[in-house]
């Protein structure tokens, strides 16, 4: 099997900045944190989002504060780890690998997720598909 060419943290930051000039990226102790705003489409709200990534771990995304809301108070938002943390991909090497650019995967997937989130808020139905937690065991990230 071909070895994958892991992208360094500074390369990841550079790609995010070049694709999304509005995003601010910092690297502290090997942890990349990118903050920016996403509006998935003309009908959608604009969201403050945070992406965190350390080589050797799965990228994490946050939509901080109370920007995301369940339909009923105390209810669950589909495809989230926590009320501020969407699950964008099934954690396996087939979904995301360290040679992939955050700018070309995680950020567009977050835009898509937000689109389906708003459709869910509007209609009560999740149209974005996906895999349920618990159906499969979480795998170790690709290093």
């Amino acid at each position, binding site marked *: 099997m071909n070895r994958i060419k892991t992208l360094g943290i500074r390369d990841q930051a550079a790609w995010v900045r070049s694709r999304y000039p509005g995003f601010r990226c910092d690297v502290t102790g090997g942890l990349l944190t990118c903050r920016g705003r996403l509006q998935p489409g*003309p009908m959608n709200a604009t969201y403050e989002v945070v992406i965190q990534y350390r080589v050797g771990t799965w990228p994490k995304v946050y939509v901080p504060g109370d920007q995301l809301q369940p339909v009923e108070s105390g209810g669950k938002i*589909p495809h989230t780890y926590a009320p501020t943390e*969407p699950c*964008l*991909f099934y954690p396996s090497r087939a979904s995301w690998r360290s040679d992939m650019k955050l700018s070309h995967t995680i950020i*567009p997937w977050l835009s898509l997720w937000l689109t389906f989130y708003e459709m869910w808020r509007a209609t009560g139905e999740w149209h*974005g*598909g996906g895999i349920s*937690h618990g159906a499969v065991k979480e795998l170790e990230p690709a290093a």
Partner: protein
Amino acid sequence: MLLVEPQTHTALPSNRAEWLDRHLARVCILSELTPTQFRNAEEKYHAVGDWLAADGSSLAVFAPEVYPQGSMLLGTTVRPYGQSEYDLDLVCQLHWCAQQPPLTIYAWVHERMAANETYLEMLEKLKRCLRLNYAGSFHLDILPACPNDRIGNGSIIVPDRKLECWKHSNPKGFAAWFLEQCRLRDQLAERMLKGSVEPLPSAVPSQYKFPLQRIVQLMKRHRDIYFSGGRDIARSVILTTLAGGFYQGQRSLSLALEGVLDGIHYALEANPTVPKIENPTHPGEDFADTWDQAKYERFKSYIRNFRVELKAVLNPSLTEQRMGLEKSTERLGHLFGSNRVNEAIRIEANELNERRIGGKLGIASGGVLTALSQVGSAAVPRNQFFGR
């Protein structure tokens, strides 16, 4: 047949009006006869025509002719709110019969219809027309008529509401006027395809419809919800006449609808008392002659409400913009019914998923999802959302 270019969207909507154009078209498609239902209805009325004109028919000597009128002819059918059956109106035009009293003509047509066993079972006598019930699908209302030879040009006379005397009507003339309004100032020459047989917009598959046809469908749909079956419900012919009169030829459905509602709104506000709404093809005939002040006020508030809700979706306040799709969907639900609106969102989601699976989804630098063909967009790889 006269056709408009089908709407195929390579790009995702880039502004609210574009999104709304597609959303409203979906709401209309969900509310109208499907092409199969339409063909089915056509077959049925042709069969009625054949039966009335067949050898051995008592009516054959009057050379009966059956043709659609109203929404089926105009291409503006909308399934009545909360019902599964469409109302489709037909004219059964006899010839050389204008000297007879309406009751006699009505009785002749009924007699011939009842002579058919199949029809007899589903035949219903209404006040001035005969109804064929195709349960679960539609009913055909057949209005007996005679030519109005004094006026010509497709003019006919039809029984009045009490079947006591004849009154003027011209469904073909009205449809011709409406079609002209549809094509108005739209530089349609370039959008039309060759092969003109008969300008029957109703026979056109729904994705080929003109914005004005869609506007009338949307006005009828909101009317059905706003008046919720009340007795003072505004007649479709009034909506059609006003929409046709105020349409400015915009291609964008949502902006055209906004323009029509603006036009009607200002015209009504300038008239504190009941105005005349004249038949554009028969001056002197006032479609609003049964309105009293209360009915008029109710109609005004229907237009006002429609306009306010639509504008709020097109140009939301900052607060509503922050609420995203949810707020717009709520307002559209007030206008057209939340079931229909949710179904339209589901179709939008399906289209988005098709792009996603087909690798045709891109993203622009602001995080806005776009078509991959759009300049400056990067492809979005496939993913599967995870989690409960």
